């Protein structure tokens, strides 16, 4: 009897082991070594980051660019839908009021309305009150004229969308940080500073540069002509700076070819103070 129980017990245990083998209890599972998801890091140069949207647009094929422009125009033409128009107007109005008319809008207009309402309800007590009211009215009229003038001016200004477009257009032509750094580094290598010159730390030279389209300097003009004539030490530093602009190692200058409009004229300030 005892033996049969033992056999049964043993059989149950074996069965349990087999079941467990198939069931795969969590603690018996081997820990899966799934690596964490890979986060891709794209290495880009700073100019790519600082490139404005328009530049990216320009990099698109010509057909794509044209398409986008057409699309923008279509959107403008679509505006006269009554509800949309109203919405746009309100939004535009609010933005402009916040920016330009904040001090006038918030206080004066509601006060005027309330006063009018009050005056309608209460009888006028005396002439003095009437005069005061008149004066206030005149003041309010001044503000109204100011508001009108500003609104007229606003009409002459491009709308928000146009303004944004202009801004982005403007930013897009700007030289990027890395382009400016490359230019600066190139010129630094060409600037032979007259070491040991008197008051060198006070000599700040500004040069107006006129560039040719091939990135060579057409003319480098020292701005402070009067100081050039009166101070021989300044002239020395200024001439060293001008020579840098014509130096063979700075001809041509490292400038992006597509942004000639941005760098065809520029001012360069040479300041030896930080070198000393």
């Amino acid at each position: 009897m005892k033996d049969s129980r033992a056999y049964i017990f043993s059989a149950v245990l074996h069965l349990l082991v087999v079941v467990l083998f198939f069931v795969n209890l969590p603690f018996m599972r081997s820990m899966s070594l799934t690596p964490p998801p890979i986060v891709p890091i794209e290495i880009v140069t700073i100019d790519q980051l600082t490139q404005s949207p328009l530049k990216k647009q320009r990099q698109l094929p010509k057909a794509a660019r044209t398409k986008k422009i057409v699309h923008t125009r279509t959107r403008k033409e679509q505006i006269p839908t009554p509800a949309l128009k109203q919405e746009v107007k309100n939004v535009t109005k609010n933005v402009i009021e916040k920016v330009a008319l904040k001090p006038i809008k918030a206080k004066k207009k509601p006060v005027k309305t309330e006063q009018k309402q009050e005056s309608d309800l209460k009888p006028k007590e005396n002439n003095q009150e009437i005069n005061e009211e008149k004066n206030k009215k005149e003041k309010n009229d001044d503000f109204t004229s100011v508001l009108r003038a500003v609104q007229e001016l606003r009409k002459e200004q491009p709308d928000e969308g146009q303004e944004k477009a202009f801004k982005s257009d403007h930013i897009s032509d700007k030289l990027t940080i890395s382009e400016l750094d490359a230019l600066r580094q190139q010129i630094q290598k060409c600037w032979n500073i007259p070491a040991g010159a008197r008051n060198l730390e006070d000599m700040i030279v500004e040069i107006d540069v006129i560039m040719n389209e091939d990135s060579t300097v057409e003319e480098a003009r020292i701005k402070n002509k009067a100081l050039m004539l009166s101070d021989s030490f300044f002239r020395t530093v200024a001439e060293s700076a001008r020579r840098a602009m014509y130096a063979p190692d700075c001809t041509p200058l490292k400038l992006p070819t597509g942004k000639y409009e941005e760098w065809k004229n520029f001012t360069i300030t040479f300041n030896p103070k930080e070198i000393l």
Partner: protein
Amino acid sequence: MKQLLILLCLICFDGKADLNLKVNQGHAKPLPIAIIEFEGKTAEEKKIARQMTQIIKNDLKSTGLFDIISKSSFVQQSVDFDMTPRFSDWRLIKANALVNGRIKMMEDNKISTGFRLWDVYSSQAMTHSAFKTDKKYWRRTAHLVADAIYKRITGEQGYFDTRIVYVSETGSQLKRKRRLAIMDQDSANHKFLTNGENTVITPRFSPTMQTITYMTYENKIPKVFTLDLETGIQKLVGQFPGLTYAPRFSPDGKSVILSQAFEGSSSLYLMNLETKRVRRLTKGRFIDTSPCYSPDGSKITFNSDRSGRKQLYIMDADGQRIKRISFGSGIYATPVWSPRGDLIAFNKMEGGKFYIGVMKADGSDERLISSGYMVEGPTWAPNGRTIMFWRQGKSFDDGRQEKAELVVIDITGRNERVLKTPKEASDPAWSPPLPLTLK
């Protein structure tokens, strides 16, 4: 109305700013300059032209500020004196500046020297000049041309047409013979001024004329003399009860300031060379010595032990408002005010080593520009850009000592070079620019 105007201004303001690049780094390398051999038609003209060109090159090169481009790299081998150079050819070899000139023999053994300096990169003439001199002064003329080039490019007065007076030393340390000697700043035209009978020390140039003051031990008694270099006339500067030393001229050249030791202390005195009137400037039981005027004559710098250790001081020319300017560790001595007034050169001893340094006149920005076993006696070039001093190496047990020599260095601490002298040399003094009438 006011608000409306402000609004209008804001609206009308064009926010577009032009591109403005700031450059605040560069390098300080010698300026590449091409010097074409001066033109000459006759054999004599050509010979003088060649020698003058070489002197101009040497002068400019010695400053450390110019890199003379070798003739072998020239694309355009010669430039007609009356023509504009082909700038593109000179740009190719990276010449920043170009010099050409012409020598012409005239009547009465005179020569005419003309030169032109060009800015190659901006294709412009920078300066030109002509000198007419006696043929024998061709060397001075070359220095004058180098001065003109240096001045136009650096903005500083040139110092090539100057002289050095110094103490020439011969013999062993025990039997040392010290003679006064003079030479051009490039070691040419050397000559001795005294015969070495009496030991001579601390020669100093007058800032206005070719006169020197120095101290000599006549019959073992130290005395201060002046010597006119043109006439050779020697004069004793006053009779003082004690020992007088460290003489130096006032900026107008009419007085001499010196130190007089008496009863254990040294004070500063000023003596008018015309009236012989003596005025005491400092008082007290201190050792005040090495006085030197500021170039405008309003202040005097000197060294004194009044704070317990030798330090540098400045005071007003009348001896009032004494102010200490050196506060570093070590001992400071022989302050010399720069001719351009911005710096004071000095001698410093610290940790068994000697230094030559410069500091601003208020004591700030102290910089040590040279060091050695013994470096002493700084003297300024007339333009305040270069300092000369003398250096001596170690002495040995058998009495031998390393050679004493004159050393020239730029105030930036660059371009240290030894000046050639026939014998050992110490105690140099740099002359002011020579007058054009000087023979």
